């Protein structure tokens, strides 16, 4: 049963319902609208990014749906990224951001996780200034605040 998705720039993508429903947002929209052939508008996602997102959902279409695990032990959480996903995430920083934004908006948890794991691996071992540079983040602390926070957390560095 095919579903049509329309991107921000009016490009139409036709995918299997099963693939589209990897996005919880889309899944809910389909349930709300019921039986319908009309395309689903995604005004927040450009075609380039939507193409990537669909590629991810196609590859992972048979993955079991992740259940929210309340006893989730952070120590057991793996930072491993499987090979296909690693290749998939080898993109420029702009696209990385777009993928994360899209995964967040479309509510595709595994894709959001992969994107954020990638970010976590990038920030490892970097100084705050280096992290800001890589991700275009503005330092919005006052110099006093910055010094204060450095002192506050100094005991926790290099544990």
């Amino acid at each position, binding site marked *: 049963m095919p579903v049509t998705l329309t991107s921000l720039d009016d490009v139409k993508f036709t995918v299997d319902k099963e693939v589209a429903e990897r996005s919880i947002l889309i899944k809910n929209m389909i349930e709300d609208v019921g039986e319908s052939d009309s395309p689903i508008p995604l005004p927040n996602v*450009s075609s380039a990014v939507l193409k990537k997102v669909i590629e991810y959902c196609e590859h992972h279409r048979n993955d079991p749906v992740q259940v929210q695990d309340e006893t989730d032990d*952070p120590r057991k*959480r793996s*930072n491993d990224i499987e090979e296909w996903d690693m290749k998939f995430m080898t993109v420029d920083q*702009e696209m990385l*951001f*777009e993928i*994360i*934004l899209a995964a*967040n908006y479309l509510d595709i948890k595994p894709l*959001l*996780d992969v994107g*954020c*794991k990638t*970010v*976590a*691996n990038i*920030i*490892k*071992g*970097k*100084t*705050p200034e280096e*992290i*800001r540079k890589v*991700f*275009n*983040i*503005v*330092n*919005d*602390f006052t110099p006093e605040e*910055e010094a204060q*926070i*450095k*002192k*506050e*957390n*100094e*005991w*926790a*560095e290099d*544990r």
Partner: protein
Amino acid sequence: MSNVHNPLLLAEVVLVVANYVNPKEAATPSRVCRTWYTVFRPLVWQTCDISDDRLRPGGKPLGQRRPRPKDMVKNAHNIRELICNGSSFSNFEITCSRLKTLRSHNVIYASRPQWWSQLTQLLVQNDQLETVDFDGTREASTLKFWEALVSRPALKYVRMNSVNMSAEHFAIFWNGCRGLRRMELYDINVPCTSEFIEEQLETLPGLEAITISHLAATALLRLCPGLRLFRWQNYDMGGNGQLQMLAFLLERQHFPHLESLQVTRVEDLELATCLGAMDRVKELVIEGSPLGLQSFDALERNFAKLQRISLEYVFPIPSKRILVLLESCPLLKYIRAPKLKASAIVLGKPWVCQDLEEFRVSILVGVSGKTTIRRGSQAVFERLSKLTRLTHLDIGFHYMQDDNSDSDDSDDSDGDILACQGLDLTLESGFSQLSTLKNLEELDFSYTVQDMSAEDVKWIRDNLKKLQVVKGICNRHGEYRDQPQN
């Protein structure tokens, strides 16, 4: 692409990133910007260590900083695990009320008159505590302390060390711990008899694991029908009547869930009896006593189920006996043993322990000449290469002792054990076969004599990508590496 919104300024996204950041590395990201500070700050303070440097061995490294007291007060609500010791109480105002774990230690047998009241106060403040791990002092414990401890509704795990308490206090503790899963009692001084235990103490059906040293083990064990793990830690020279009694008990009372046995200094017969009485043995840890023939026979019945075996300071023990474990235990995940001879490995059968994660056995390759060592190493590497799930490989010579245990081997051309070499970790000896060990995190070859070249070291860097800790001296020129790598 115009005006791309930065997802790393959205707290909900940064929160997901923080899920994959080790809390020990959260301090630096917290300094990036305001949003990141808000998200990472609780992670930074999740585990807080305010103990001073003069801690018992195994405590944090000398010179490690402690937080500033005012910052600790400001972040008390973020702290879930607090590590402190006696002096912490005078240096810090501890206002934490959401602790899940409390570790509070002392220099053993120190005198600290305020200790029990300070600890009691801390307990009373924190009703979400699940783990309490503490040392006692020369002063006896107080009733208020024990009442506070057992009234923690979420308490699951208690570890105590060097505590003086009365029999009544022990009864309050034991009977009050209905939800407790694990209990570790080290060096507990309680004047009580077996009769007292039988009459005053209740059954704890929920207790899964217990560690005992210096206490009437058998009488207590009768009260733990749900036990999964029993650990007996006794270093007394005076022999082990306790384990004799344990064997006696196990033959008469059925412990359907018991599958892990950890003992020190036991006789072969006692151990064999215990093993024989267990429905299954998934884990066996022995320290400081031999794994005799009778025990080994009893263990043999469990080869199909055995997952973890640790033989520390277990002498004498022939290589063949250790080898049999590798050749017969398909579920084995962890093995620690004193030594194994390469010659025995070469003559032995393929290993069935495909899922092995930790291999900690010194491997002796023999003395005579480079060729023998190369060939021996080559054969061992071939066996090791099949263990693709391996995360820890430790072939260092940590406990070398000449015990003649292998003198019954027909092939004894290896000569004096103390002069034996370890594995030769060079490409020439086939070390590259270990490229299959994609998951390896730790490699330890301490105290072995190596002659590695720069090329060998580079190979390790290029091929064992997940390696984080390397221990050992690479060559005679003293290149020493013991480092967490990224």
